[in-house]
């Protein structure tokens, strides 16, 4: 603008100079001032005309053109607000959905993790042929740490269950034991107090904890006095030395390793301080982080770790010929690995929605182009260049797209909270989507690209704008092509969604090997000196289940040390040996590992897990007894019938322990997310494996939620110091365990529905328009004797033709897509007839309705009026 004013001033100055020179010359010839001025003006001619002609010669400024186009756009759109609103809303939906999803994808997959130089950090795990992803024993950590490797630092962590008591309401919290360098390793120093000292990894010095910022705020009111305070954890006094940074991100759940189960939130950290007893036993339960030196090769580090571990194992078990393989995963994989596919799937669904929206808008534009064909033809005739017309159309679509993007961003911002609520715990850690700059840039980019695409497409397809009849003709045909495309996109999206929905239903209703309806569940953990003797723990759970069974409405109650619904197991797992095995080191890696689950005698009656052979536990089991899961039985004795297993012996965890007699075989159980593997399980009577933590299974005759207060009352009555977490129905727990799948499903369904809606609007628009264009033809047909039903049939069948084509193409595309995404399906094939059939029905019904409405209008036309149209 400034430049423009400058240009104008210079032009004025130049013309002024000319006029003045002319006047001066005339005066020199003897004319008076007035005469000279008059003569000069006569010679010069009209000043304003000259200026205008000069302005016309000014090089065309793109900015001027743009301003003119935008002004023109604003004018035309304000004359047609319905069209503008429809287009802006469509853009807003498409761009908003994509921006929201992109902001989650960005947070989860792209944004640097909140660690110092996160690219250097890897997670290390051991791989054996039959156990591809194992945590490591503390000995391996110590060996690796003391050796010279390409890694500049190494840190270890493992899950630690905490029951907090002594100050206020008892509470069960997620904790982790970590190497003392954990916080400095990640580069996230504690926010308050001090970090662990190296000496605190000595047993006896390790009664110090760092708590999370969230716990500090929630339980201790964010007061400074918390540093140095002593609190009771699992009945032992610990001193709080620090508060972690609010931004600290640590692996939760089974993110780090499928066998290592951290709590959904980790609030307490304590140093790993292996006692001499710990160092004699092998407990494969430590996760390892390493930091690679900047110029070092990862492969070299892998081999160093491999040989160190193998060499160490040879010293422990001479003669054992085990070669360990080490896997090193970038830390990003820990957080994003399992999510990546689901997120990208949702992003793809959003992109399909945006494509559908674009097609719809292109369609709207074509319709408008046709209705404005006379205007365009006139303008071409008056000399408007094609490029100018094109740039005008592009400006129009881009302005609409930008306006749509603005609304879309508002939409995305408002849905961000909803998104993180929808996402499971795994996602919540990463997604901080108060809309970020990259997402905004993404929205802007999407707006410009879609705006240009929507404008370019129809404009290029009307080759000769001079001929208004041809514009109408080509655009009608082209619009049908667009409807076909839109239908294909919508079908693909809807069909994939159908498969996901069917998978979800199958996952929810899958036979897990335990009931989920009318079951209450609560996790308890006994701690402290009161429960030191095993007999007191046994007595507690026996009495608790007896008390619960006495509550009216409760039909069965039992306890299990480790809930089968958990997607991971926090409980113990042990190698199961044959009684004939004598050499531990030689056989340990050949025998199956099973989860050890202690159950009270009432458990199976409550859970409904079916007995395959043998008998259930009695209330008294004097001799070492076990029930084993079907998969464990088949693993130990392949090809033998299940009843033959009863009465055989096994050893658990050791070749020297007592021989345990198998009393029965029960069906396999699947975790809540039923698409995961069923682990082999060995069940022991709680009296023989008296675990402190246990999950109560309570079967009710009525709505289970109504009994929760009574259950809480009964437990509180037994021990007021025992933390009682939320009592939830099994159905809730199972739903939560499939939260990732649900997240994916809800978003994809939403996008598919929107795409369906857009498709229906598109069909409706095209058919209505063609009815309008053909009013006279319809009148003629009626005058010639066509019945209303004929007209109806004729219009619907014309309208449905592109729908059928799009449907076929879309179905084929969906089947190809589903094949690629087989891992996301559960219990359905990519060609699942139920899902695909339902999708076809829905699509046909919707588009028939979209055709029927304008067709009915056509059929109701009065032939005489129509003919005069």
């Amino acid at each position, binding site marked *: 603008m400034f430049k423009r004013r400058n240009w104008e001033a210079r032009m004025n100055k*130049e*013309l002024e*100079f*000319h006029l003045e020179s002319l006047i001066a010359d005339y005066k020199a010839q003897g004319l008076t001032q007035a005469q000279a001025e008059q003569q000069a003006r006569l010679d010069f*001619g*009209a000043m304003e005309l000259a200026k205008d002609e000069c302005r*016309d*010669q*000014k090089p065309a400024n793109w900015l001027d053109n743009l301003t003119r186009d935008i002004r023109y756009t604003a004018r035309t759109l304000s004359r047609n607000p319905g069209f503008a609103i429809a287009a802006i809303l469509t853009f807003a939906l498409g761009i908003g959905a994509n921006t929201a999803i992109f902001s989650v994808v960005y947070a989860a997959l792209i944004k640097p993790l909140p660690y110092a130089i996160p690219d250097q950090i890897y997670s290390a795990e051991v791989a054996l042929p039959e156990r591809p992803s194992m945590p490591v024993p503390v000995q391996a950590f110590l060996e690796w740490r003391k050796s010279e490797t390409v890694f500049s630092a190494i840190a270890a962590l493992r899950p630690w269950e905490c029951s907090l008591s002594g100050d206020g309401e008892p509470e069960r919290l997620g904790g982790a034991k970590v190497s003392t360098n954990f916080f400095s390793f990640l580069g996230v120093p504690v926010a308050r107090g001090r970090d662990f000292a190296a000496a605190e990894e000595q047993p006896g010095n390790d009664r110090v904890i760092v708590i999370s910022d969230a716990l500090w705020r929630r339980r201790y009111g964010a007061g400074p006095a918390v540093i140095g305070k002593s609190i009771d954890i699992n009945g032992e006094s610990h001193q709080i030395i620090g508060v972690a940074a609010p931004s600290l991100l640590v692996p939760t759940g089974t993110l780090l390793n499928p066998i290592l189960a951290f709590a959904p939130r980790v609030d307490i950290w304590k140093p790993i301080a292996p006692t001499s007893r710990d160092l004699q036993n092998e407990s494969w339960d430590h996760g390892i982080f390493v930091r690679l030196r900047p110029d070092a090769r990862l492969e070299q580090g892998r081999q160093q770790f491999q040989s160190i571990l193998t060499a160490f194992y040879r010293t422990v078990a001479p003669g054992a010929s085990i070669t360990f393989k080490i896997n090193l995963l970038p830390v990003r994989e820990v957080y994003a690995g399992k999510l990546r596919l689901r997120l990208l799937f949702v992003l793809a669904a959003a992109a399909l929605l945006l494509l559908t929206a674009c097609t719809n808008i292109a369609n709207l534009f074509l319709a408008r182009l046709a209705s404005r064909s006379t205007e365009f033809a006139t303008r071409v005739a008056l000399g408007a260049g094609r490029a100018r017309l094109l740039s005008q159309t592009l400006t129009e679509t881009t302005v609409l797209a930008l306006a749509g993007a603005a609304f879309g961003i508002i939409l995305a911002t408002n849905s961000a909270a909803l998104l993180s609520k929808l996402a499971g715990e795994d996602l919540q850690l990463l997604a901080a989507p108060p809309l970020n700059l990259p997402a905004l840039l993404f929205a802007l980019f999407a707006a410009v690209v879609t705006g240009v695409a929507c404008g370019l497409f129809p404009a290029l397809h009307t080759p000769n704008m001079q001929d208004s009849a041809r514009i109408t003709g080509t655009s009608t045909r082209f619009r049908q092509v667009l409807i076909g495309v839109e239908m294909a996109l919508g079908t693909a999206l809807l069909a994939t969604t159908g498969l996901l929905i069917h998978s979800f239903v199958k996952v929810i209703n899958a036979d897990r090997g335990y009931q989920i309806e009318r079951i209450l569940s609560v996790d308890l953990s006994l701690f402290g000196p009161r429960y030191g003797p095993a007999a007191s723990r046994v007595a507690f759970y026996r009495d608790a289940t007896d008390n619960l069974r006495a509550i009216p409405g409760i039909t069965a109650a039992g306890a299990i040390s480790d809930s089968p619904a958990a997607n991971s197991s926090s409980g113990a797992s042990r190698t199961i040996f044959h009684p004939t095995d004598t050499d531990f080191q030689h056989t340990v890696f050949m025998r199956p590992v099973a989860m050890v689950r202690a159950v009270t005698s009432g458990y199976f009656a409550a859970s409904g897990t079916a007995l395959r052979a043998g008998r259930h536990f009695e209330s008294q089991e004097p001799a070492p007894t076990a029930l084993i899961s079907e998969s464990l039985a088949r693993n130990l004795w392949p090809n033998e019938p299940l009843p033959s297993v009863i009465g055989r012996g096994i050893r658990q965890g050791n070749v020297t322990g007592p021989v345990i007699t198998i009393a029965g075989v029960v069906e396999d159980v699947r975790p809540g997310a039923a698409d995961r593997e069923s682990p082999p399980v060995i069940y022991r009577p709680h009296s023989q494996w008296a675990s402190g933590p246990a999950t109560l299974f309570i079967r009710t005759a009525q709505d289970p939620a109504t009994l929760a207060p009574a259950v809480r009352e009964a437990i509180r009555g037994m021990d007021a110091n025992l933390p009682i977490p939320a009592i939830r129905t099994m159905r809730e727990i199972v739903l939560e365990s499939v939260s990732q799948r649900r997240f994916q499903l809800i978003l994809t369904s939403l996008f598919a529905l929107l795409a369906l809606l857009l498709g229906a609007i598109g069909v409706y628009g095209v058919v209505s328009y063609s009815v309008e264009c053909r009013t006279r033809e319809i009148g003629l047909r009626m005058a010639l004797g066509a019945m209303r039903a004929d007209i109806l049939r004729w219009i619907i069948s014309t309208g449905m033709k592109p729908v059928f084509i799009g449907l076929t193409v879309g179905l084929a595309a969906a089947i190809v897509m589903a094949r690629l995404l087989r891992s996301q399906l559960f219990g359905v094939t990519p060609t699942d007839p139920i899902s695909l059939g339902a999708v076809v029905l829905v699509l046909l019904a919707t588009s028939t309705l979209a055709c029927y409405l304008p067709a009915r209008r056509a059929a109701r036309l009065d032939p005489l009026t129509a003919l005069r149209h």
Partner: protein
Amino acid sequence: MARHTEKAPGDAELLQGTLDMLILKVAALRPIHGYAIVQRIQQISREALQIRQGSLYPALYRLENQGLLKSDWGKTETGREAKYYSLTKAGRKHFEAETAGWKRLCDAVSLVLESAE
């Protein structure tokens, strides 16, 4: 292209292309401002060619826009600021080509006129 006007030969309005050529011719000698261009053209043509002076400027702007002329602000002998035009390389080439074409046209026209006499 050409505007058909019925006017006395002495008061001849310039054909558009002709004005361009005259401007280029005048500006070819040295940098010159708009007023001086008018003066020169009238001087050279011995007042036979009358230019509506206001129409000079659109022509100048067009030629500058086409890259045939370039302009600079400078001082006149009387110390006033004025915009001076001079030929660019492309302008010189264009001028030469146009002159040659004009000559051929003139020769052809006179040949026809003479033989008809």
